[in-house]
């Protein structure tokens, strides 16, 4: 039954709803795949095999109904979650020693919606600690390997999610994106990743890193799967005041509305396409995708995003500031790690936080504390927030001349493990193309557009749109995907697959 895991999510859910396949067999195909590949990939922090199997057997006992596809669009589909999303009764670690034994008593809103849609949760996926990182090497548990090349990083912070989907261990995963953490690992692992507009998806139960930037989104094999998953998780939630009360379009159905790209104006910012620092592999595949877009009827127009080069600096100020405030809750009192030897309360706080948090998390908490501290607030935090306004205005002006903006997701393909861990600033600079989108609150889709000629590693194209135009991004991505060659199975695991 192992071949079942090579289906897309759209295919498997149809066959499940038709009663053609048993849920248990589909779940087992994923578990077999995990047994075979996890020893080399390490995408999961926690597996929930028994819960998944017992849920599957219960679903098989009842069986699908004639209206299952409409009422339970993910009925029986095995999925996995980045371990920053709370799951009732299932350990949620955020990749941190601080939460190594934390078992939430509530589901994140997106998890509730997945369960209501009939999904089966396979477990929790590895990540950079508290989503701070671009390589998943900051996990307190273990690094995750890139299925295309086992000594390369899968990207981050949603590296476990991208690797699990690329290795076909689950039919899709949820990730979170604060500065590129869905799109960059999706690009490195050759899967589709969608960062929705700020406010499109409820953040209730997403353990906060930088609240004004974080969004949850789908990581899938195909654009259609991303559309299906976004349709399930998007929409207003009274438990998150930043979640917009706007109707959710029928994303999967809308894909059929566009069969080519005629009339589409694609903005091409020089800031994203300049040859400086753009690896030839990345430049070549992304440009080929743009040529294809033009053949399909699109017009490429130059646009300017003049403040792009300030985005990384602004981002790390804003994100660190918000992180220092959000992570103040980890004090060893109500949950999380506590140092048992401390003699008084302050020492307990300090020891618990110092032993519970890893180095990058401590670095960002301190950086955030510094930029928010008296005397520096205006120079750093306010200045960064003003820069953020300028970056947002760049996008708003650009979208007066184009419908979507395209560019590479990353300047390079997946880099080697250990290559950038010694120099935090170099690691931050890998997010140069993804970060401005979070500052502006806009949606972006990472689409695999082929393998690099030299590296043999996946290259991702980023399609950016105006706020709440996920429908358009998905349509454009779907058209391009249908004309691009499908990626083969990841090279790094080709020998080991069951």
């Amino acid at each position, binding site marked *: 039954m192992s071949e079942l895991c090579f289906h897309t999510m759209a295919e498997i859910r149809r066959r499940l709803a038709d009663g053609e396949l048993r849920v248990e067999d589909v779940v087992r195909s994923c578990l077999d795949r995990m047994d075979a590949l996890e020893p080399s990939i390490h995408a999961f922090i926690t597996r929930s095999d028994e819960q998944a199997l017992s849920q599957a057997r219960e679903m098989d006992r009842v069986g699908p109904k004639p209206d299952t596809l409409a009422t339970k669009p993910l009925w029986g589909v095995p999925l996995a979650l980045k371990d920053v999303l709370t799951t009732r009764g299932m350990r949620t670690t955020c990749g941190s020693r601080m939460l190594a*034994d*934390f078992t*939430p*008593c*509530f589901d994140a809103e997106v998890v509730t919606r997945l369960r209501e849609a009939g999904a089966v949760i396979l477990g929790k996926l590895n990540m950079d600690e508290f989503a701070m990182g671009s390589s998943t090497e900051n996990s307190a548990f273990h690094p995750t390997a890139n299925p295309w090349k086992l000594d390369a990083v899968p990207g981050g912070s949603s590296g476990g999610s991208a690797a699990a989907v690329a290795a076909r261990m689950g039919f899709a995963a949820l990730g979170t994106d604060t500065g590129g953490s869905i799109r960059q690992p999706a690009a490195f692992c050759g899967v589709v990743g969608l960062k929705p507009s*700020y*406010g499109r998806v409820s953040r209730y139960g997403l353990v906060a890193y930088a609240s*004004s930037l974080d969004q949850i989104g789908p990581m899938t094999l195909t654009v259609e799967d991303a559309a299906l998953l976004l349709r399930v998780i998007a929409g207003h939630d009274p438990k998150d*005041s*930043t979640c*917009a*009360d706007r109707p959710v379009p029928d994303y999967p159905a809308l894909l059929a509305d566009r069969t080519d790209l005629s009339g589409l104006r694609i903005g091409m910012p020089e800031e994203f396409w300049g040859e400086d620092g753009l690896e030839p592999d990345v430049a070549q595949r992304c440009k080929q995708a743009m040529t294809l877009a033009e053949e399909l009827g699109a017009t490429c127009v130059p646009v300017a995003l003049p403040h792009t080069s*300030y985005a*990384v*600096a*602004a981002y*790390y*100020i804003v994100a660190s500031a918000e992180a220092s405030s959000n992570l*103040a809750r980890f004090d*060893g*009192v*109500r*949950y999380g*790690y*506590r140092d*048992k030897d401390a*003699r008084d*309360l*302050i*020492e*307990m*706080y*300090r*020891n618990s936080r*110092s032993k519970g*948090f890893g180095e990058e998390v401590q*670095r960002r*908490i*301190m*950086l955030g*504390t*510094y930029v928010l*501290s008296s005397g520096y607030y205006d120079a*750093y935090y306010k*200045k*960064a927030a*003003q*820069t*953020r*306004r*300028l970056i*947002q205005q760049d996008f708003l002006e650009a979208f007066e001349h184009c419908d979507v903006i395209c560019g590479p997701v990353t300047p390079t393909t997946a880099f080697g493990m250990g290559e950038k861990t010694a120099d*935090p*600033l170099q690691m*931050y600079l890998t997010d140069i193309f993804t970060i401005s989108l979070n*500052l*502006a*609150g*806009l949606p972006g889709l990472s689409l695999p557009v082929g393998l690099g000629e030299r590296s043999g590693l996946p290259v991702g194209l980023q399609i950016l749109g105006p*706020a709440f135009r996920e429908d358009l991004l998905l349509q454009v991505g779907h058209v391009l995907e249908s004309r691009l060659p499908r990626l083969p199975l990841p090279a790094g695991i080709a020998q080991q697959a069951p």
Partner: protein
Amino acid sequence: MSISVDEVAKVAGLARLNLEPEKAEQFAVQFNDILDYMRKLNELDTSGVEPLYSPVTHETVFRDDNVRMEYSREELLGNAPETDGSYFIVPRIVG
């Protein structure tokens, strides 16, 4: 403007983190790198630019404050490192 090892130690204290002396030195070097890079923002004239703190454009609406029993005391104490069954227990605060 550069940040000294002492300042790093002070910030660590504010953030309730311990910092070994050698770590403080390493962090000071890294912070200076990062803060140098961040000062790139000073090239921009932002006078009169309204800061953007959140991309939310909708009005935040207050919901009714209805009292509901969502979680039991047992569930909420379930992850605490130390409790007496009713309350969170912390080390002594006042002598």
